[in-house]
């Protein structure tokens, strides 16, 4: 009886561990994450029937950034920040290069999904 319990327990550990590993390794679906000053304000799947989707983000200092999510890509379409760097950046399609609006402290980034094989971005 004790042996059976032990085997049962061990089997459970194996299944749980394997599940944990598979869950970790398995690709989480790609998601657009929008943060303001480090706080997540919105998460939108990068794929699906709800797209295309337009979202208005309220950034720091009362600023506004308009984010457009389309199938597999996201951009900041317009913003009332002075430098327009976030708008100039255009569309992103993977996690290595977030779109950043410094004046409003807004970050639009892609998390999860298939790895692009790129470790770091410059530009």
């Amino acid at each position, binding site marked *: 009886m004790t042996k059976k319990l032990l085997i049962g327990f061990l089997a459970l550990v*194996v299944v749980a561990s394997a599940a*944990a590993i598979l869950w970790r390794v398995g690709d989480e679906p790609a998601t657009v994450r929008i943060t303001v000053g480090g706080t997540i304000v919105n998460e939108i799947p990068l794929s699906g029937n709800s797209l295309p989707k337009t979202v208005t983000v309220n950034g720091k200092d009362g600023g506004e950034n308009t984010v457009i999510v389309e199938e597999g890509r996201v951009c900041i379409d317009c913003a009332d920040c002075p430098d327009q760097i976030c708008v100039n950046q255009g569309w992103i399609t993977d996690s290595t*290069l977030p779109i950043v609006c*410094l004046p409003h402290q807004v970050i639009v980034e892609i998390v999860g999904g298939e790895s692009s094989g*790129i*470790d*770091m*971005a410059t530009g």
Partner: protein
Amino acid sequence: MLRRVKLIILLAVLVVVSGCSAEPESASTQIFAMDTIITLSVQGEGSQEAVDEEIQFIYEMEQLFSVTDEGSDIWAINHGQGEWVAVSSDTFALLSYAVEQAEWTGGAFDPTVYPALTAWGFTTGEYHVPSQDQLDALIPLVDYSAVELDAASLSVRIPEGMMVDVGGIAKGFISDLIANRMGEMDNALINLGGNAYAVGQKDSGEPWRVGIQDPDSDGYLAVLSLAEGGAVVTSGGYQRYFEEGGETYWHILDPETAAPADTDLRSVSVTGSAATDCDVLSTALFVMGLEEACDFWRANQHFDMILIDSQGTVYVTETIYDSFTLADGVERTVEVIAP
């Protein structure tokens, strides 16, 4: 039979558990500082402590180097009214190096260009084209050779009206300092607003892959493989710019004219083992233009570069040609720059 089953299960557990513990310790943090976005990702024992320490270090350096913060060393120098100003050893080291690099690049990089940047609105985002009279008045104020440095008293003096700004060098300088301290870690990725530095080896043993942004469309133009790690810094006229009267004005100014550099380049990426040099050179080579940049590389081959000209042609120095690949779906003419 039971014993055998037990053994198999035990082995399976061991494999699974060891698989879990083989996952190395790692930590990653993203912050806004130094007027940009900074990401540190570190792998190895004590990685979280290492990241926390370096973030703290970045904030400390920002307080010294900020051009707008009234408590900074740079602010004190710029408001010294022509008198000597004592600064911290870090600020002194950085400014000394900035002046050296200005000499090295023949003034194509100049740490005193700030008043001109302000006149164009690049420091505030309130862009406008200054009059030629305004620019003529600014040109004499852009002159790195007027920066006086006294090593004995760690003091700096600049003429009244001039301003120093380490924006074009500080991110590289800080990256180098952080990278030097990452030696004990398995590996680290340091990215200070596009100043990218890979330290150590990737788990898989494969080279690091650094994506270089396409100045003329979305996404990447190319990927550079770094087997041994190192820095890659890119400067271009395609991110911080404005348009007025059909003309495009970018934020990289020619110190000689106090106006946006009249260059045939769209983007310059510089790679090497010292991020400070890469940072300075990406700006300086952009100002120089294609031909002068190639000559400069031939005379100083301790760095490598990828240049993209206004026609979209890509120029790659011979040493890194084999580590360079165009991104999927990108078609460009690629020319090799021979020594």
